């Protein structure tokens, strides 16, 4: 099932809409052949505009170029770019059956009927839709519609697969299941994929690389691990995962704060803001003697795989700490927390 795919390059692509609104500032982006890149950001950050530039549904402002494997496709409309697209609304054709929808791109290409049937059957099997083949699309569940939309996009063997929040319309439980399926499907197909989402869990699970965007700019591009452990800015760090801010001050090259058991050695030069950051799962509960921080449990919420503690009397605001679910904690006890030296994040205050 491996498909031929292309590398995508955007060069100085900006987009200003008719009414003068700047949706995208000039950006550069490269997607390797076969790679899955996730564009992540809040609504209005320009991620969908970037996807539509790649698709050919929008043209970049003069000066911007879109290349597929080095070939300039900037002026090509979407119908000749050979891209597969999946929309948030699925956009299934209500006047066609499941089979009709999946085969539409092949009929447009005037392939022989036998070949269309063969290819559609192949996709029906891949997507476990065989039993729904002759059903009207409005009689499908959300998850089934999503799979039909994906099969339809894949049927003409596109060079690039573009997905615009394909799981957003589904409910939480189903979204998690489909995220896993989508991941193994994309690995299996090995097709160049650009995936737009505002859900960081989805981005982490699916992306070879994640491109974090905000206000029409690329804030950071990197592997999920790079983005999570070395966020380029506070905005990125806040958007990816949960983050605790520990306010304090630097004296004698060490960090002092309320609740600090002992001054903390600075892992890197602390920027002027005077705060350090850590993630809830990077704090371990330890005896007071070994603790970096000592505080009081204000609330403990059992979440199954973990318990989320709200710990007060540290810094200037309560911090969140995740401990394994089986740990049984009476709220309101005093606890010691240890944070490994490499788990501290130092971020510029202003970047928020």
């Amino acid at each position, binding site marked *: 099932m491996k498909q031929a795919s292309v590398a995508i390059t955007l060069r100085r692509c900006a987009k200003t809409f008719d009414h003068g609104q700047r949706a995208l500032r000039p950006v550069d982006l490269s997607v390797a052949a076969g790679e899955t890149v996730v564009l992540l950001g809040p609504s209005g950050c320009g991620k969908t505009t970037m996807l539509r530039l790649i698709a050919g549904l929008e043209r970049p402002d003069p000066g911007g170029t879109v290349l597929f494997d080095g070939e300039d496709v900037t002026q090509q409309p979407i119908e000749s770019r050979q891209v597969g697209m999946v*929309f948030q609304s699925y*956009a299934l*054709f209500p*006047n066609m059956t499941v089979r009709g929808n999946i085969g539409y791109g092949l009929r447009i290409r005037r392939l022989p009927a036998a070949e269309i049937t063969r290819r559609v059957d192949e996709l029906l099997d891949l997507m476990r839709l065989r039993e729904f083949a002759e059903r009207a699309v409005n009689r499908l569940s959300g998850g089934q519609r999503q799979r039909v*939309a994906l099969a339809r*996009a894949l049927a*003409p063997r596109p060079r690039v697969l573009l997905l615009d929040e394909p799981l957003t319309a589904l409910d939480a439980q189903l979204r998690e299941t489909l995220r896993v399926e989508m991941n193994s499907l994309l690995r299996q197909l090995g097709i160049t994929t650009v995936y737009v989402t505002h859900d960081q869990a989805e981005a982490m699970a699916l992306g070879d690389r994640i491109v974090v965007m905000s206000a029409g700019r690329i804030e950071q591009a990197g592997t999920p691990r790079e983005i999570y452990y070395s966020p380029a800015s506070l905005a990125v760090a806040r958007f990816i995962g949960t983050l605790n801010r520990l306010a304090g001050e630097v004296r004698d090259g060490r960090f002092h704060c309320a609740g600090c058991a002992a001054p903390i050695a600075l892992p890197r030069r602390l920027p002027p803001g005077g705060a350090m950051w850590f993630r809830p799962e990077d704090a371990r509960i330890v005896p007071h003697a070994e603790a970096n921080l000592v505080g009081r449990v204000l609330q403990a919420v059992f979440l199954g795989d973990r318990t989320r503690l709200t710990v007060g009397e540290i810094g200037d605001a309560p911090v969140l700490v995740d401990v394994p679910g089986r740990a049984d904690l009476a709220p309101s006890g005093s606890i010691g927390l240890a944070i490994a030296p490499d788990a501290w994040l130092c971020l510029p205050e202003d970047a928020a």
Partner: protein
Amino acid sequence: LRGMMLAPAVAIFAAFWLLPMAALARISAGDGLAGYLAILTNARYLRSLATTLALAGGVTLTALALSLIAGLFLARRRFPGRHALIAMLTLPLAFPGVVVGFMVIMLAGRQGLLADAAAALFGHRVVFAYSLGGLFLGYLYFSIPRVILTLMAAAEKLDPALEEAARSLGASSWQVLRDVVLPALAPALAAASALCFATAVGAFGTAFTLATDINVLPMVIYTAFTLNADLLTAATLSLVLGAVTWLVLAWA
């Protein structure tokens, strides 16, 4: 509150709805089945029915074609003056049938603009106001705004992703129109055609203003009833006209 609504609803229904139609049915059944058949097989009435239906059908198809182009254009494009254009397009809705007839005469009648223009250009006056041609023009005039408004409303509700999906699969503009847009607009098109057809079948004011000898069914009914006092014919033809219109409306 809710339980109390049943009684008045049924009363209103009975009083207003069934009584008049029952009256019509009673009169038309005056001579029994033979009377019905005599009227329904009368060549003059059949011709009149055929004329009425053909005229309404022609108006509907023409209005549909023109409105489709204009409606899709207006629903998609944003340009200066768009709102003003739409507001002016709805102007004919404000004029009753009598005035529309009057306008047709001003335009294509003996002293009409077209006649004057044709006289200046070709040396002979073009006059078609007092015939089916004038009626066709008049009906078209008040049908198009209604159809355009219905189509625009439907076209604006269309998910733009549907067209984008079709294009991403390689469909040309024409294929998108044929495979995606028209099927999606089909219910609105059906509803608009039915309404257009029903209105054209029953329009009277325009026909009466243009000429008393245009042989469409509402005119025939009026003549039978008022001038000839032929209640039987008038009632039977009324029922036929009502049945045809109701079927067309129910089908959509």
